[in-house]
C-alpha cells in the first residue's frame, strides 16, 4: 500500500492534535506546526499528482457481512483537488501567520485550520461514501469552529450556528441518499458503484430519489439555493478562513462530490434538470444580491455563491469536467480575492465597508495589482483563468439551449458589473475615511501569498496549461457564439459599473430587493418562528388539554365524579341504611342460592 496518501491525509490531523493537546499556550509554535503539516502534505501531493491513478485502503469496520471501507481513490479529479486544497491551503496558512499575528486565539485558529485540512483531504481522497460523509461532517465542524473564531461577537457565534444548522439540513438528505444507495447495492465504494449502479434494475423513482438526496448534501455544503443563506453570514469568520473554506475548497466540495458520483445522475437524467435549475437560480440570485452589498467580504461571498451556482449548473449540463475546471481556477482567483480583501481589511483596521475605502492604488500596490488581476480572472477576461473555465460552461449552456446560455450570460454580466463596482469603489478614487488615508501595504508574509496565487490566477486556464493539471479535460470545439456573447456582456458589465460608480462617494442606486437579499433570510426567520410557534402551540395544546386535562385531570375527575354520585346515598338516616343493607343481603342470598 502506498503510504503517501496517508501522509497527505494525516499530517494535518497530527498537527491539529499536537496543537490542541500540547502547544495551546505557544501560538507561534502552533502556527509553524500547522504550516509545516500542510507543507508536508503539499510536498507529498506532488509525487502522487505525477504518479498513476491508484486506489487502496482497508476495512475500517468489519463485522460479519457488514463492512465499512476506509481508503483512498486517486484519479484525475482527486489529483486536481489535492493540488488545489494543499496548494491554496498552504498559501493561506502562511498568510494567516500575518493576518492573525495579534489574535489571542491563534493556537485555536491554527488547530481549527489543520483540522479542516484533514477533513477536506478526507473528502477528496475518500473512495467510499461513508468516509466521505464522515469527512463531510468534519469539515462542517471545523467550519463551525472557524466561523465562530471570534465567538465573543454575538454575530459570529450566530453565523457559526446558522452555518452548522443549515448544513445539517443538507447533510441529512445526503445521509438518507447514502443509505438508499447502500441498501440498494450493498456497496459503498465509488468505483464499484459506478460500474454496477445503472445495471441494478431499480425503479426510476428510487434512482431519482437517491440522486436528489445526495444532491441535497451538495446543496447544503456548496450553499445552493435554498440553503445558500449560511455562506454570506459565514464571512464573520477571519478572512483567511473565508478564503480557504468559504471560497476555495469546502464549498467546492459539493461540486467535487457531484462530479465524483455523477453516475447517480446519469442513471436518471431527469435529476440533472433539477441540478441545473438549482444551479442557475443560485447563480442568478446571488449575482443580483451582490450588486447591492457594501461589505467587501459579502460581495465576494455572493460572488462565490454565484460561481458555485455556475459550477452546479455545469454538472447539471452533464459537463462535470467543465464544472471541475471552473472549480479549479475559481479556487485560485477567489482565494486571491479574499486574501486581497483581507489585506485591505487588515491595513484599514478591520474596516469592511467599501464606501469607507478608496484611493488604495498607491498605498497598497501589491494588493491592488493582484486584486485587479483576480477580478479580471473572475469576470472572465481573456486570457486569465476565469475566461477559459467559464467559457466551457457557457459553451455547454448555449449548446443545450439558448435560454440557458442567456441566463448564464446575464449572470456573467452582473459578475462583471459587481466586481467592477467593488474594485472601482474600494480601490480607485480618493480615500473616504481616516483609515483609508492611513492605509499601508501589508507585511510580506501576507503579500507574498498574493503574488504566488496571482500566477495561477493568470495562467492556469490557458489551453496548453490547464490539461497539465486536469488530464480529464476534454478538448471541445471553440464555440464562437459563446465567446462573443461572453465578451460582449463582460465589456457591458464593466462599462456600466465604471459609468455608475467612478468617483462616487455613495451608492446612487438603491434596490432594496437586492440589498435585502430577496428577503430570503427574513422569510426563513419568519418561517422558523412560525413553525416554532406552531409547534409550541401544538405541544402546549397537547400538554394542557390532552395530558393535563385529559389524562391527569381525567383520572382525578372520574374518581371525583364517582364520589360525587355516590355521596347522594349518604342520606344520614340510620334506618334507611339498615333497609338498604337488608335489601343487599336479600339480593346476595337470592343470587347465591337461586340464580346460579
Amino acid at each position: 500500500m502506498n503510504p503517501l496518501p496517508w501522509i497527505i491525509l494525516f499530517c494535518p490531523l497530527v498537527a491539529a492534535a499536537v496543537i490542541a493537546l500540547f502547544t495551546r499556550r505557544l501560538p507561534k509554535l502552533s502556527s509553524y506546526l500547522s504550516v509545516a503539516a500542510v507543507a508536508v502534505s503539499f510536498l507529498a501531493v506532488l509525487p502522487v499528482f505525477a504518479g498513476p491513478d491508484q486506489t487502496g485502503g482497508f476495512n475500517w469496520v468489519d463485522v460479519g457481512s457488514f463492512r465499512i471501507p476506509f481508503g483512498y481513490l486517486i484519479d484525475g479529479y482527486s489529483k486536481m483537488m489535492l493540488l488545489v486544497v494543499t496548494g491554496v491551503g498552504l498559501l493561506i496558512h502562511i498568510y494567516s501567520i500575518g493576518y492573525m499575528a495579534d489574535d489571542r486565539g491563534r493556537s485555536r485558529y491554527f488547530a481549527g485550520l489543520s483540522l479542516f485540512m484533514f477533513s477536506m483531504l478526507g473528502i477528496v481522497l475518500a473512495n467510499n461514501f461513508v468516509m466521505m460523509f464522515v469527512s463531510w461532517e468534519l469539515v462542517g465542524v471545523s467550519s463551525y469552529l472557524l466561523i465562530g473564531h471570534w465567538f465573543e461577537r454575538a454575530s459570529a457565534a450566530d453565523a457559526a450556528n446558522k452555518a452548522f444548522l443549515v448544513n445539517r439540513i443538507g447533510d441529512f438528505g445526503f445521509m438518507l441518499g447514502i443509505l438508499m444507495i447502500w441498501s440498494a447495492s450493498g456497496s459503498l465504494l465509488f468505483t464499484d458503484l459506478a460500474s454496477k449502479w445503472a445495471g441494478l434494475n431499480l425503479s426510476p423513482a428510487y434512482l431519482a430519489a437517491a440522486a436528489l438526496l445526495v444532491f441535497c448534501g451538495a446543496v447544503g455544503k456548496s450553499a445552493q439555493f435554498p440553503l445558500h443563506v449560511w455562506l454570506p453570514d459565514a464571512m464573520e469568520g477571519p478572512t483567511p478562513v473565508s478564503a480557504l473554506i468559504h471560497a476555495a475548497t469546502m464549498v467546492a466540495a459539493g461540486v467535487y462530490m457531484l462530479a465524483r458520483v455523477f453516475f447517480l445522475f446519469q442513471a436518471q437524467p431527469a435529476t440533472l434538470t433539477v441540478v441545473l435549475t438549482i444551479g442557475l437560480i443560485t447563480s442568478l440570485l446571488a449575482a443580483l444580491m451582490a450588486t447591492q452589498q457594501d461589505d467587501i467580504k459579502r460581495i465576494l461571498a455572493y460572488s462565490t455563491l454565484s460561481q458555485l451556482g455556475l459550477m452546479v449548473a455545469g454538472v447539471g449540463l452533464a459537463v462535470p469536467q467543465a464544472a471541475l475546471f471552473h472549480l479549479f481556477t475559481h479556487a485560485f482567483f477567489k482565494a486571491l480575492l479574499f486574501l486581497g480583501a483581507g489585506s485591505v481589511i487588515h491595513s484599514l483596521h478591520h474596516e469592511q465597508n467599501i464606501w469607507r475605502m478608496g484611493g488604495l492604488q498607491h498605498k497598497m500596490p501589491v494588493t491592488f495589482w493582484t486584486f485587479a488581476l483576480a477580478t479580471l480572472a473572475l469576470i472572465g477576461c481573456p486570457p486569465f483563468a476565469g475566461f477559459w473555465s467559464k467559457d466551457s460552461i457557457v459553451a455547454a449552456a448555449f449548446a443545450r439551449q439558448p435560454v440557458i446560455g442567456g441566463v448564464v450570460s446575464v449572470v456573467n454580466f452582473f459578475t462583471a458589473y459587481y466586481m467592477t463596482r467593488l474594485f472601482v469603489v474600494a480601490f480607485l478614487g480618493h480615500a473616504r475615511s481616516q483609515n483609508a488615508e492611513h492605509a499601508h501595504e501589508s507585511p510580506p508574509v501576507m503579500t507574498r501569498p498574493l503574488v504566488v496565487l496571482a500566477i495561477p490566477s493568470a495562467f492556469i486556464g490557458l489551453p496548453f496549461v490547464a490539461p497539465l493539471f486536469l488530464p480529464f479535460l476534454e478538448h471541445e470545439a471553440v464555440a464562437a457564439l459563446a465567446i462573443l456573447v461572453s465578451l460582449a456582456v463582460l465589456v457591458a458589465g464593466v462599462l456600466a459599473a465604471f459609468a455608475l460608480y467612478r468617483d462616487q462617494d455613495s451608492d446612487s442606486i438603491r434596490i432594496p430587493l437586492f440589498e435585502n437579499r430577496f428577503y430570503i433570510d427574513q422569510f426563513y426567520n419568519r418561517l422558523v418562528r412560525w413553525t416554532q410557534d406552531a409547534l409550541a402551540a401544538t405541544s402546549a395544546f397537547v400538554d394542557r388539554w390532552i395530558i393535563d386535562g385529559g389524562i391527569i385531570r381525567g383520572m382525578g375527575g372520574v374518581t371525583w365524579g364517582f364520589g360525587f354520585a355516590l355521596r347522594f346515598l349518604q342520606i344520614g338516616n340510620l334506618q334507611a341504611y339498615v333497609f338498604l343493607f337488608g335489601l343487599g343481603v336479600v339480593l346476595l342470598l337470592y343470587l347465591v342460592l337461586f340464580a346460579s
Partner: protein
Amino acid sequence: MVTLNDYLLVSGLLFTIGFAGVMLRRNLIIIYMALELMLNAANLSLVGFSRFNIQNNLPDFNAQVFVFFIITVAAAEVAVGLAIIVALYRARQTTHVEDLTSLKF
C-alpha cells in the same frame, strides 16, 4: 318431637323481630337491644345445627363453642357500644336516630 326446622323457625322469627326493631325503632338503646336479638337468633340457629348434626352418637360441639365465643365477644361489644351511646348522649343530649344525621352529604 322438636325438629331442626322448629329451631330455625324460632331463630328466623327472632331475627325478623330484631331486624324490624332495628329498622323501625328510633331509640338507639332499643335498636341496640334489637341488634342483640338478631345476634342471638344467629346463635340459636348455630345451636340448632349443632344439636342435629349427630356424629358417633354425639352432637357437633364445634358450633356450640362458636356460640360461646360469640356470646363472649358480644358481651365485650355491648360494653363498647353502650359506652359510645352514653358518650353520644352526653355530647348531644339525645339518643334518637333522627337527631343524629350529621354524617351525610
